[in-house]
C-alpha cells in the first residue's frame, strides 16, 4: 500500500492507490488509479474510433486516417497470419486488444499517469485468457487430434520422448513470455525514466545531461509502447492460427 505523499523509489510509481473502496461479497473490486486509466483508455479509444471517423468522408482527414490505418493494420495482420473466415471472426477481439494495449501504453507515458500494463497481473490475465481461449478453440476444432500438435507428423518415433516435453514446455511458456514481455518492457521503461528524472535534480547544473537523455528515452519509450502492443497482438494472431491450423 503506497499512501506515501511523495514517490520516492523508482518502483513506487507503480503502487496501486484505491480511490473508491468497493467490496462485492468479499471480492475486492475497488476503483484504483489502475482502474481509472483502464476506463480512460476505453473512453479515449471509443471516442477516437467513433467520433474520429466523423461522417466517414470519402477523403479522410487526419484523425479519420488514424482510425482507418489502425483498422487496416489489424485487418492486414489477421488476414496475413490467420486468413479466411477466422480472420473475420477474431477481428473485433484482436482489434480491441491491440487498441487497449496501445492506448494503455501511450496514455501511461503522460507524466503522472498510471500505466496499467506495467503490472504483471494485468498482462498475465490477458495472456492467460488468450492462452486458455486458443487452447480451447484448438480442442473444439481438432478434438483429440489437438495432441498431435506436440508431435508433428513425419517426426521419427524415437524423437518423441525428447520432442514432446519440449513442445509442451514451449506451449505452456507462451502465456508467460507473452505477459512478461509486455509487463517488463513497460515497467523497465518507466523505472529508468524515474531514475534519470531523479538525476536531473541531484546533478544541479549538469542536470541537462540526464534531461537530454530522458527526452531521447521518452521517444524510445513511445516506440516501445507501440511495438509491444503490436507484438502482443501479432503473437495473439499466431496463437489463433496455431489453434485453427494446428501445424506450423
Amino acid at each position: 500500500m503506497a499512501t506515501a505523499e511523495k514517490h520516492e523509489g523508482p518502483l513506487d510509481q507503480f503502487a496501486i492507490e484505491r480511490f473508491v473502496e468497493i467490496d462485492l461479497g468479499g471480492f475486492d473490486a475497488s476503483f484504483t488509479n489502475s482502474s481509472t486509466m483502464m476506463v480512460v483508455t476505453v473512453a479515449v479509444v471509443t471516442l477516437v474510433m467513433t467520433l474520429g471517423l466523423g461522417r466517414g468522408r470519402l477523403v479522410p482527414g487526419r484523425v479519420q486516417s488514424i482510425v482507418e490505418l489502425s483498422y487496416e493494420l489489424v485487418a492486414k495482420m489477421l488476414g496475413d497470419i490467420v486468413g479466411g473466415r477466422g480472420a473475420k471472426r477474431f477481428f473485433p477481439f484482436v482489434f480491441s486488444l491491440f487498441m487497449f494495449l496501445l492506448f494503455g501504453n501511450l496514455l501511461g507515458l503522460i507524466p503522472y499517469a498510471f500505466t496499467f500494463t506495467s503490472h504483471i497481473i494485468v498482462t498475465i490475465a490477458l495472456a492467460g485468457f488468450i492462452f486458455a481461449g486458443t487452447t480451447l478453440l484448438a480442442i473444439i476444432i481438432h478434438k483429440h487430434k489437438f495432441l498431435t500438435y506436440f508431435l508433428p507428423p513425419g517426426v521419427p518415433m524415437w524423437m518423441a520422448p525428447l520432442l514432446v516435453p519440449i513442445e509442451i514446455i514451449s506451449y505452456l511458456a507462451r502465456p508467460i513470455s507473452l505477459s512478461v514481455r509486455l509487463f517488463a518492457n513497460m515497467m523497465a521503461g518507466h523505472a529508468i525514466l524515474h531514475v534519470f528524472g531523479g538525476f536531473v535534480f541531484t546533478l544541479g547544473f549538469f542536470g541537462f545531461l540526464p534531461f537530454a537523455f530522458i527526452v531521447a528515452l521518452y521517444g524510445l519509450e513511445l516506440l516501445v509502447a507501440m511495438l509491444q502492443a503490436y507484438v502482443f497482438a501479432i503473437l495473439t494472431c499466431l496463437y489463433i492460427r496455431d489453434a485453427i491450423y494446428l501445424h506450423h
Partner: protein
Amino acid sequence: MPQLEFGDYAPQIAWLFVSFVVLLLLMWRVALPRIGRVLEERETRIADDLAQAEKLRSDAQSALDSYQAALAEARSKAHTVLAETQAKLDAEAAERRARLDDELTQKSAEAETRIRQAREQALSNVRDVAADVARTTTERLIGVAPDQQASEAATDAAMSRKS
C-alpha cells in the same frame, strides 16, 4: 515491488475484465462496423468510378470507330459518285462528238454536191459562151454564121477532148 502486492490483484483483474469487455462490445458493435462500412463504400466508389471510366473510354472508342466507318463510307460513296459522273460525262461527250461528226459529214456532202452543181453550172455557162464566141468569130471571119446547134456540138467536142 508493487507488482507483487497480492492484495491489489483482485481490483485490477475486476476492472480489467469490465473495461476490456466494454471496449470489446463498443468496438464490435459500434465502431468497427462503421469503419468497415466507410472503407467498403470508398472501395466500391473507387471500383464504380473505374468501371465508369472504362465504360466512357469504350464508348469514346466505339464513337471513334463508327465515325471512322462513316468517314470511310462517305469517302467510298464520293468515289462512286465521282466515277459515275465521269462515266456519264464521257458518254455524253462521245455522243455529242458522234453527232457532230455526222452533221459535219452530212454538211460536207451537201457542200460537195452544191459545189459540183455550181461547177457544172459554170461549165455549161462556159460552153454557151464559147459556142457564142465561136459563132460570132466565124461570122466575122467568113461572114457566114454557123447555126447554133452545130457550134454548140463543136464546142462540146472541143471541151470533152480537152478534159
